[in-house]
C-alpha cells in the first residue's frame, strides 16, 4: 500500500502484473520483426521464376537476390540488418515523441498493408517496394518500441524479461518456417502473401497490449532488496531526455529539436561509448558464420537436408538459450556484473568459431551448431539488456537508435568480407578464424573497458555520497530529483558493486521522504 505522502506519485516499474502481458506482446512483436524476413526465403525461388529474372538482372535489388544466393543463412543475416538498421533512429525518435504503443500499432498496420499489396504485385520492382520497404519499415517499427517498453515495465526482473522476449525470434522462426511452407503448398505465393499480411496485423494486437506506463520521475520506497535501489533511484524517468531540456518550443534550431528526440549527448557517456565500440567490433564477425554455415556444410559433402537441419538445431538451442540466459543474468551473482557476462558470451561465441575448422565430420558440425546456438542466444538475449543497464531506461530509446546507426555499416560489412575471404582462399576456415578472432577481441575489449568503467563508477558514487552527506536534511524532493537527473548523465549502471553503500544512501533517502 503506498504511503500517504506518495499518493501523487506513480510507482516505478511494476516488475510483474500487467508487465507479463506486455511481455507476451513484446514476444510476438520481436518475433515477427526478426523472423519474418527470414521466413520469406521459401518464396524467393518461386518469385524469381515467376518474374523471369535472373540473379544478375536484379542484382541491385538487395534483399531478394541476396537471400537466394546464400539461402536461408543470408535471410538470417538480413533479418537483423534490414528492419532494425534501416530505420532504427527513426523508430527511436517516434517512440520518444509518441510512446511505444502508437508506433507498434502503426508498424503492424504498415506490415499488413505491405504484404497485402505485395500479393497483387505485377513486377519484381513493385514486390521489392511492398515487401522490402513497406513491410520492412513496418517490422522495424515493431522492434525497438517492444524492447523499450520492456525496460519500462521491468527492472528487477528485466534480464529475464529481455531473455524471454528475445526468445520470440527463434520460436517465430520455427513456426513461420512451417507455416510458410504449408501456405505456399496450398495457396501459392500470392495467396500466402495475402494471408501473411493478415497474420502480420497481429502486431497491432501486440501493440495494443503496450499500455503506456505513466510513471513520472519517482523516488521509490520499493521493498528494499539487495539489488534494486540504485537502479530504481536513477532510472525511473519516463520522458527523461525531454524533461531535461528547456520547455519552450520556440527559438530552437533544427539540431536542438533533433537532440530533443534523439539524445546525442549520449556520445559523451562513457558506458555508451564502450558498448558502441565493442558492439561495432563484434558485429563484424557475428552474422557471417550463420550465413555460411549451410554452404560450408554442403562444401564438406553434406547433403541439403542435413545442412538445413544444422540451422534448425541452431534455432532450437537458441530458443532455449535466451530465456535461460535471462534467468542467469538476473541472478544475484551475475546481475551486478552483467557486463562481464556479456563479454564472456561474446568471447565464447568467438571461441566456437575458432574451433569450427576442427570439426569436419557431420557430428562435429552438429556439436558446433549446438554451441553456436547457445552462444548466439546468450549474446542476443543480453544485447539490449546491457545497453539498458549502461544508460538506464530513460535514455535507452535514444541510445538504441544511435547504436543502430553506428552498427549498420559493420553489420553489412561482415558477411561480404567473409565471402571475399572464402573466394580468395577457396577455404571456409579463414572466414571462421576471422570471425572468431574479431569476436574474441571484442569480448576482451568489452571486459577490460567495463572493468575500468565499473571502477570509475564506484569512484563517482563515492564522491557523490560524500557530497550528499552535507545538505541531506534540507533537500526537498524536487531538488533531489534534479540531482539524480544530473548525475544520471554521467553514470548509468544501476547496479554497481557497491551494494552496501547503496543501501545506506537509500535509507537516508527514505528518511527525507517520510518527513
Amino acid at each position, binding site marked *: 500500500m503506498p504511503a*500517504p505522502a506518495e499518493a501523487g506519485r506513480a510507482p516505478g516499474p511494476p516488475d510483474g502484473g500487467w508487465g507479463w502481458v506486455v511481455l507476451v506482446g513484446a514476444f510476438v512483436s520481436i518475433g515477427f520483426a526478426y523472423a519474418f524476413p527470414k521466413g520469406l526465403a521459401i518464396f524467393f525461388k518461386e518469385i524469381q*521464376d*515467376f518474374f*523471369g529474372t*535472373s*540473379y*544478375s538482372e536484379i*542484382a*541491385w535489388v*538487395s534483399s531478394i*537476390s*541476396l537471400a537466394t*544466393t*546464400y*539461402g536461408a543463412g543470408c535471410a538470417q543475416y538480413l533479418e537483423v540488418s534490414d528492419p532494425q538498421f*534501416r530505420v532504427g*533512429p527513426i523508430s527511436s525518435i517516434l517512440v520518444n515523441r509518441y510512446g511505444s504503443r502508437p508506433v507498434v500499432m502503426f508498424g503492424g498496420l504498415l506490415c499488413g498493408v505491405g504484404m497485402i499489396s505485395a500479393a497483387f504485385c505485377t513486377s519484381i520492382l513493385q514486390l521489392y517496394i511492398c515487401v522490402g520497404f513497406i513491410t520492412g519499415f513496418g517490422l522495424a517499427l515493431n522492434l525497438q518500441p517492444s524492447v523499450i517498453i520492456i525496460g519500462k515495465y521491468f527492472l528487477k526482473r528485466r534480464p529475464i524479461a529481455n531473455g524471454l522476449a528475445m526468445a520470440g525470434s527463434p520460436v517465430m522462426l520455427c513456426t513461420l518456417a512451417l507455416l510458410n511452407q504449408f501456405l505456399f*503448398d*496450398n*495457396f*501459392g505465393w*500470392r*495467396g*500466402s502473401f*495475402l*494471408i501473411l*499480411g*493478415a*497474420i502480420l*496485423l*497481429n502486431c*497491432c*494486437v501486440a501493440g*495494443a*497490449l503496450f*499500455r503506456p506506463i505513466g510513471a513520472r520521475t519517482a523516488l521509490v520506497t520499493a521493498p528494499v532488496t539487495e539489488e534494486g535501489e540504485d537502479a530504481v533511484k536513477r532510472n525511473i524517468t519516463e520522458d527523461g531526455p525531454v524533461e531535461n531540456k528547456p520547455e519552450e518550443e520556440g527559438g530552437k534550431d*533544427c*539540431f536542438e529539436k*533533433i537532440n530533443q528526440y*534523439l539524445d*546525442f549527448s549520449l556520445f559523451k557517456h562513457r558506458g555508451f561509448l564502450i558498448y558502441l565500440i565493442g558492439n561495432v567490433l563484434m558485429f563484424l564477425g557475428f552474422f557471417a558464420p550463420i550465413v*555460411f554455415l549451410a*554452404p560450408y556444410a*554442403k*562444401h564438406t*559433402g553434406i*547433403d*541439403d537436408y542435413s545442412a538445413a537441419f544444422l540451422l534448425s538445431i541452431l534455432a532450437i538451442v537458441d530458443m532455449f538459450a535466451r530465456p535461460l540466459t535471462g534467468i542467469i543474468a538476473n541472478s544475484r551473482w551475475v546481475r551486478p556484473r552483467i557486463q562481464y557476462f556479456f563479454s564472456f558470451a561474446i568471447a565464447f561465441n568467438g571461441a566456437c568459431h575458432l574451433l569450427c575448422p576442427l570439426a569436419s565430420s557431420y557430428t562435429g558440425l552438429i556439436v558446433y551448431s549446438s554451441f553456436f546456438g547457445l552462444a548466439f542466444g546468450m549474446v542476443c538475449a543480453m544485447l539490449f539488456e546491457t545497453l539498458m543497464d549502461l544508460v538506464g531506461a530513460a535514455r535507452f530509446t535514444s541510445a538504441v537508435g544511435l547504436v543502430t*546507426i553506428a552498427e*549498420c*555499416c559493420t553489420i*553489412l*560489412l561482415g*558477411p*561480404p568480407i567473409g*565471402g*571475399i575471404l*572464402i*573466394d580468395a582462399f577457396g577455404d*571456409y576456415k579463414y572466414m571462421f578464424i576471422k570471425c572468431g578472432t574479431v569476436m574474441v577481441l571484442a569480448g576482451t575489449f568489452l571486459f577490460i573497458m567495463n572493468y575500468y568503467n565499473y571502477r570509475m563508477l564506484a569512484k563517482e558514487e563515492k564522491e557523490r555520497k560524500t557530497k550528499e552527506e552535507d545538505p541531506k536534511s534540507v533537500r526537498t524532493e524536487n531538488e533531489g530529483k534534479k540531482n539524480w537527473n544530473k548525475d544520471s548523465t554521467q553514470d548509468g549502471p544501476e547496479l554497481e558493486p557497491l551494494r552496501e553503500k547503496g543501501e545506506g544512501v537509500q535509507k537516508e533517502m527514505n528518511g527525507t521522504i517520510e518527513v
Partner: protein
Amino acid sequence: MPATFYGRCLGRLLLLLLLCTSVSGGSPTDPAMTTQDSNQTEVNSVTKMQAGHESSGPGVATEKLKPAGKENSYNVSAHEILLSGVSGAPLEKNVPVPSPAKVELTCKLDENSNLKNPQVTWKKGNETISHTSKTPNSWTVQLTISESSQLGSYSCILKSEKEVSAVFHLQVPKIEGKEKPVITYEGDRAVMVCKTEYNPKAWTWYMTNGTELVAIDKILPIDKFQIKRQSASVNRLEVLKLSKEDRGVYWCEAAFDLGSAKMRFELRVLSIMAPLKPFVAIVAEVAILVTTIFLYEVYSKRKGKGGEKELDQTERL
C-alpha cells in the same frame, strides 16, 4: 550535422548494398556444384568428371550418322564408385549421358576392406563385358555410347568371401522441375520452368487433352501460351489469362541425342475466394482482440478511479 550524417550513412549503406550484391556474385555455392552434390546417391561414391564433356552438346548434336572416325572426337567422362567391402544393397550412381560419348566406369575397392583378391565381373543385364584393371584394387570398363540401346544399367560384381556390387545407371539427363503442384489464380499467369544441366537439342511442351498429349507450339494463340528460352538449358512456359479450364497436367520434354526426358507439372487454378476466407477470419480475429484489449483497459481504468476515490474518502475520515 545530423542530416548530413544520416545522408552519409545512407549513402554508405547503398554503396555497401551494391558491394554486397556484386561480391555475392562469386558465391561459393555455384549451382553446378550443388547439382553435382545432389547427384551423389551414396556416401561412398566419388565422381571424377573431366572438363571437356559439358561442351559436347552443340558440337555433336548435328550428327545423326556416326562414321567410325568421328568416335575419336567424342568426349570422355569417367565415373567411379568406391566400395567398402561391406555387403548390403548395391551402391548406385546415375550417369547422365546427353550425347554420344566415351564413358569409363570404375569400381574401386577400399584398401581397408576385408575383401581380398575378389573375382570381378562387369555385366550389363545378363551380358558380361570385358574389363581392365588399372590398379590392383580398381577395375574399369570403357564404353562407347552412341545409341540409345547402349544406355542402361552396368554393374560390377566383386566376389570372394562375400559379394559386393555397384551399379551405374547410364541414362538421358534428368530434368529439374517442380514435383509439387503449381498453384495460381484466375486471371493470373502460370509459369513452368524446365531446367537441365546439359543443353538439349529441342524443347517441347505438351498439355493433356483428356488422355492425349497435345503439343503446345506456335499454332496455339500467342496471347495464351508463351514459350521462352532463357538459355540453352532452361526453358519456360507461360500460360496467361488463366481460367479454371487451364488446370491439369503439362509436360515438358527435352530431346537429347540418345533419347528424351520428360517432366510433369500439375497446374492448379484457384479462385481468389480460396485465400480470402482465412484472410477475413484472421482480420476479424485481430479486430476483436484489439477492441477487447482497449475496452478492458478503459474498464479497468474506471474501476481504478472509483477505487482511488474510495481511498481518498477513507483517508479523510
